[in-house]
């Protein structure tokens, strides 16, 4: 019962993200914002504010370098994440089936569809809030959006990065133009999505507003877990795994740092989206 005591006294937080995942997300934030800014600079190169940003960052050579560096980071976290999944499977001896359809799986399934329908009903006030598990459907969408995005934008980006090499393999030159459009518009989609939908879903929805620092601190209070993801809580209690994930609440220092970093990222994202909208409405042809 010492564990229970401990739970009551100390371990009141549930660890939602382990350290590796948290580190990976920091890489995602840094590289994504970098790519977004340096990418939009060239997408909207005719717009004064983006030209100023380019100048402020040290010119198009610097933005180009940063963009490629961030691309390398992106490929790195992509690789690391795949490595993480493989390691998890190996170390925790997880079956493929569990990986694809278990309670912790990122892969969308029938229940997600039901939850989506339930959510819409809840939105419309004709049903209760669905009892979400560890990953809601929009979180799963986010996850695969990154997967999709990295694949599409990354590949087309590589094509634009090394056009001579790819054309030497026999790919026609006009595909560079096609790749440009795909890279650019997909990036616009990703940027627009993350800085609006993801931001709202995760941080700005009233029950989390203005920020949810869980991705940096890694843990949420049990109360929040019960409230937000009742099905997961139930599952953890039922399977008796809860204790395994109980951790100390994050130190105030960490929370403070997380908030500063988080707000910075949010601010940059918001500013960028404002500039994009402004450019698209007023200046983009």
């Amino acid at each position: 019962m010492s564990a229970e005591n401990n739970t009551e006294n100390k371990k009141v937080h549930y660890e939602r993200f382990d350290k590796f995942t948290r580190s990976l997300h920091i890489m995602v934030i840094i590289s994504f914002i970098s790519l977004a800014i340096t990418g939009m600079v060239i997408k909207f190169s005719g717009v004064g504010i983006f030209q100023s940003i380019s100048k402020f960052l040290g010119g198009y050579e610097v933005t180009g370098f940063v963009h490629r560096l961030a691309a390398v980071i992106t490929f790195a976290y992509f690789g690391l994440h795949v490595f993480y999944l493989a390691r998890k499977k190996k170390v925790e001896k997880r079956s493929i089936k569990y990986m694809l359809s278990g309670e912790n799986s990122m892969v969308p399934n029938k229940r997600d569809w039901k939850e989506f329908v339930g959510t819409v009903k809840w939105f419309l006030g004709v049903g209760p809030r669905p009892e979400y598990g560890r990953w809601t459907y929009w979180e799963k969408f986010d996850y695969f959006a990154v997967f999709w995005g990295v694949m599409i934008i990354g590949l087309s980006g590589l094509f634009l990065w090394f056009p001579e090499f790819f054309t030497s393999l026999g790919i026609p030159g006009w595909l560079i133009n096609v790749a440009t459009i795909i890279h650019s518009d997909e990036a616009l989609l990703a940027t627009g999505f993350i800085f609006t939908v993801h931001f709202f879903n995760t941080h700005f929805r009233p029950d989390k507003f203005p920020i949810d620092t869980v991705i940096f601190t890694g843990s949420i209070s049990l109360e929040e877990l019960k409230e937000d993801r009742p099905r997961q809580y139930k599952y953890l209690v039922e399977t008796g795994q809860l204790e395994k994930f109980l951790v100390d609440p994050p130190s105030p220092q960490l929370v403070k740092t997380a908030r500063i970093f988080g707000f910075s990222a949010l601010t940059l994202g918001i500013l960028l989206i404002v500039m994009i909208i402004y450019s698209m409405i007023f200046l983009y042809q």
Partner: protein
Amino acid sequence: MKNQLNITVRLILFISAALVYSTSIVTAQNEDCLACHSDNSLTYEKNGKEVSLFVNEEKYSNSIHTDIACTDCHEDYDAEELPHKEGENIYKVDCSSCHDVGAFGKSVHGQKKVDCSNCHSKHEIKEASEFKGNEKQLCLSCHKTSNVKAFEKSIHAVNASDKSLSCLDCHNGTAHEVTSAKFSEEQLHSVCSSCHQGAVDNFEKSLHGEALTKGRFLAPNCLTCHGSHKILSSKNEKSNTYKMNIPSLCGDCHKDGTRVSELRNISQRHILADYAFSIHADGIFKRGLLGSAVCTDCHFSHNILPHENPKSSINRKNIASTCTQCHVQIEKVHAKVIKGELWEKQPHVIPACVDCHQPHKVRRVVYEEKYTDKLCMSCHGNKNLTKEADGKSVSLYVDYEKLGKSVHFESSCIKCHTNVNVKNNPICISSGKVDCSMCHAEQVAKFAGSRHGTLHAEGSENAPYCTDCHGKHDMYSKNSVDSPTSRRHIPDLCAQCHRSGEKASVLRHDQRDIVANYAMSIHGKGLLSSGLTVTATCIDCHETHHELPATDSNSTVNHNNISETCSKCHYGIYEKFQYSIHSPEVNVTKKLLPVCSDCHQSHTIKRVDQDNFRQHIYEQCGNCHLDVTDTYFETFHGKVSKLGAVQSAKCYDCHGAHEILPSYDPGSKLHRNNIVETCKTCHPNSNRMFVGYLTHATHHDREKYPFLFYTFWGMTILLVSTFTFFGLHTLLWLPRALAERKRHKKNSDEQNK
């Protein structure tokens, strides 16, 4: 009738008989005289002198008096008396009994009691015609002075032609009427002019002749110079009028101290002495150069006139032609003064020879041209010297030191200020503006045709004149760095009027602040920052003296002439351009083809390797090729260009700049045979597939670029649908979440209570 005939016949017969009879009588008589007088030893004494009484019978018989009896002439003798009675004047023969000698009596010979026999002899009298040719000897037999004797050697006597003269040709025609040797002037002139008409006419009009006519006793006549009987050809060295003797001949009267010299009213002194030291005298007397000038070469011999006379050879107007008789090539060394024949055509405009080379002192020394300047500077060296012009006080001070450093340091004041007139006092008064065209005719003519020149001619106050750019007395060569016209200072010079806000600032919309812009242009920076004087300044494009507005078809900056103007320096570029599609020689079109200034802005012209130039392709190629320039900016090259990427490919990096050709031309950089190489300049691994990249692609053109069009719209649909979905999702979520939160809060508030 018969009787009449008989009378005539009888009369003829009678006269014939009488003649035969009388002759026979004369012969008989003379034989009596000659019986004694044919003895050549027959003499008699008269006044202690032995006089021959011999009569050469043979000669007498050949004389014209052969048929005349001795007694016909020797009238007063008594034949019976032998010897004939002394004291009776039987020797004196009176020719007047047969010959009319009235005229002779009045002649100088008659009056001086010269006997007929002195010329005609006594008993050997010949026909008058036989005198011809011997008159000279006859005269000289009595006239034995050296002067008269010299006649035999004179030009008149030994003239090579038959025209040789005898005494009588001058001394009054007929033998018996010879008058006094002292001709009157009138006689003398009529004598000489019978042969030397021209010379005498000239002389009569001359200073000498005029004096002579007025009866001035010092006045010379023909003989004064030429002598009387010993007249020699002026080519004869012994002649007074031989060239080498001329100075002494003229000097007889004109040297200092003579009465003639006291009559002179001219500024020349010591004429002969000065002449003796002159280069002309030196030439003739020391070096024996007969071509060297003596008095008569300048003053002429017979028609000597005072210098005031406009016809005089030494009149200011005629001096040049007088001197150029000998100094034919003087124009070569005095070219600047007399260029354009000003020397002859406008002698009043420029100084005459003698202004610098004093007439009798023509020394060998090279004259300091500025020797007259002292006179000018005696007034103009005063800093307070002013004149009133249009109610304003204008300084007339000349800084002689500055003038000495100017490009005209060798010129004297009067070389430019030509309208000085010795009749004025001071001589420079109202001499007017300097006419630079005297020496700089070409430049002034150009100026007159320029915009500056025409405005100046119209009287515009703002239009510049020569001195406004070049300065006045402190005028420096354009090669001098201190000169306002040195290449270094040209922009400043032109800026004085053409800078913004100044009187001639150009206000065309596209050409504002030309001077300020020039300073920032590559040409201006070359000059002002890099100190390159070879860089183009205003005058290189607009021309120095002949600048015209660009609208003028003759202007060097006219659209049609720009290329040629730039080619003065950028010839290599011009050569390339000539073969490009932009060249009117290659591209026959009604469209306005571009010239240098369409891409390289005239005054703001940039270095092409500096940021600003390459970033302005919209104003360069975009002027005409707007559609492709637009689409260029939709692709990577264009997009990074907008971020300030200078190196990223611009139009001319692929199409070429001056040598631009359409891509179907094998010479084009974009021809399919060349394009891989062209891309390789930036993309070393360029290949045939790589060059398929569409550098002017747009996803708005479905016809031309369907792949791009559909990709774009595919992506757009994806974006729109995603955002629509999540937009709605969020919009639904927000009010619900807010309501939930409110309820939650209420619950917790209740719990707390």
